[in-house]
């Protein structure tokens, strides 16, 4: 065991540990959990030289104060843009840096977006259950003793010799907060009236305050069901299922969702856009746009390629800063480069 630890001196919001989650237990009623923005978690890990799915801290509309104990720690933070300070000095997101021994890192809640990820070089030493240490709060599994992180927790690092890896940077991940969320109609689109479908496709919804890792309840116009009503014999849900209960207000199911449900599901968010849903906070707008299965598969492959290519896009900080300066002079190209990464 590494003698180096990260101490949680304070934290707020929904703060928990996540890795790629548990696969294979949905037939037992246990959803996979895992990061709601897997691209951002991958970026945080890649910044510190870890495999993309390494256990990291997920901050959900929250922040905290974290202290290195027993030695310096290389950290990387990506996702919703947070203000970071180390002992009073501002530090950038989307860059790795060293948190010196006994120094405090303050993570302020993001100004926009909802989820940010903090990875440490070498990862945390937390024991897995059912193949993963990801927190599934409702099931009481993973994280520390099946719960979120709180003040006073101590996280052991799995390695103590990684603090002096080079500083690395990556272009910030776009949150695409204004873009429509792409989805496939179904599996139960036939349970809705024509007017109901038109409402779903045409209206602007907003994320309500009931938005968490289980699901995002939306506010907006009500979606009318068809003559069969709003009960179906319970069947399986998936990440991104958009179920419409009797209230007519849609709920987008997320990583800690119930595995089955008895409400018809009008549509399903494409896998590549799950992170864009996750990053919308209460009050943010959501519009939906239908795409074909072929298009959704293209998007899924692009996303997988992006995650696989993150390490290639890493830049040493000296080069990173030079490119940013050049980008400032060539605004169009810089914008293209950022779009490419979104």
């Amino acid at each position, binding site marked *: 065991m590494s003698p180096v630890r990260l101490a949680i001196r304070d934290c707020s919001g929904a703060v928990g540990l996540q890795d790629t989650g548990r696969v*294979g237990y949905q037939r037992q009623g246990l959803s996979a959990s895992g990061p709601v923005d897997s691209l951002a978690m991958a970026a945080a890990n890649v910044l510190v030289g870890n495999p993309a799915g390494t256990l990291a801290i997920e901050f959900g509309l929250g922040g905290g104060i974290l202290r290195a104990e027993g030695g310096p720690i290389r950290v990387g933070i990506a996702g919703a843009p947070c203000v970071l300070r180390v002992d009073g000095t501002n530090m950038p997101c989307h860059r790795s840096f060293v948190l010196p021994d006994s120094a405090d890192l303050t993570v302020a809640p993001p100004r926009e977006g909802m989820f940010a990820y903090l990875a440490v070089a070498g990862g945390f030493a937390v024991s897995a259950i*059912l193949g993963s240490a990801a927190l599934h709060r409702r099931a009481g599994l993973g994280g520390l003793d099946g719960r979120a992180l709180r003040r006073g927790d101590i996280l052991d690092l799995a390695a103590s010799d990684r603090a002096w890896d080079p500083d690395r940077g990556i272009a910030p991940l776009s949150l695409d907060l204004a873009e429509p969320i792409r989805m*496939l109609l179904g599996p139960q689109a036939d349970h809705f009236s024509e007017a109901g479908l038109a409402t779903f496709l045409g209206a602007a919804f907003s994320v309500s305050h009931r938005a968490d890792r289980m699901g995002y309840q939306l506010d907006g116009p009500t979606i009318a069901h068809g003559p069969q009503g709003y009960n179906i014999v*319970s069947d*399986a849900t998936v990440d991104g299922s958009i179920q419409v209960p009797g209230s007519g207000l849609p709920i987008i199911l997320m990583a800690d969702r*119930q595995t089955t449900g008895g409400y018809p599901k009008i549509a*399903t968010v494409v*896998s590549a856009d799950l992170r864009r849903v996750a990053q919308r906070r209460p009050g943010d707008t959501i519009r939906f746009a239908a795409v074909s299965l072929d298009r959704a598969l293209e998007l*899924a492959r692009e996303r997988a390629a992006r995650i696989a290519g993150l390490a290639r896009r890493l830049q040493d900080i000296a080069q990173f800063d030079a490119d940013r300066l050049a980008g400032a002079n060539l605004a169009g190209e810089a914008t293209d480069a950022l779009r490419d990464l979104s």
Partner: protein
Amino acid sequence: MSPSPIRLLWCGDSALTVEFGDVIDAGANAQVLALDDRLRVAAMPVIVETVPTYRSLTIHLDPVRLNPNALEAAVRKLAENTIPERPPARIWRVPVVYGGEYGIDLVDVARHHGLAPETLVARHSAPEYRVVMIGFLPGYAYLDGLDPGLALSRRTSPRASTPAGTISIGGVQALIASIAAPSGWHLLGRTPVRSFMPGRDPVFLFQPGDGIRFEPTAPSCWDALDKAAAAGEPVAERVDA
């Protein structure tokens, strides 16, 4: 048994639901479990996991490897064969303390059906149920086989919390709950059995297709059974062997 026509419903780019019917039906569930078995044997790399429910099988997929037309063809082929009726591979005897603080709706449900509470207990514990779906929350076992004369639509106002191990009915469905959760079903009793218990081997006790027999148990037995279950004993007993 001849197979019913199936519907293939895409759930986004990462799952396909194979629907054998739109009502609760033992024949449809048998076909769900048969397709599930065949897909396990086929071991297609594109399949991440499968979720059997009352009347459909949802296949979770890796979209990066997915060829949708090839998958649909393979699934149709595997689903088209007739299936033999099978007895459950495993049958569990599950102790239940009925009524009182363990099943606060027992008396009301009995009164609704014009039955003595003891008669309701006898009729609820008479059948051998089948686990047709484990879902909603970890280890929640949904059962087919409820005496139709006991069916009762759900409460109009769900309860914010019901205890772990609750034995309940809702409509024609029967349920073994694992962990505490909100519920609109009628609570008839409680079992000390943990169908889901992190840290125990196995973490999950029941599988879709298992048989379940409820054994009415005296309240005086609760503490000892609950203690044994908390220590990791199954408390539910296999009676198929």
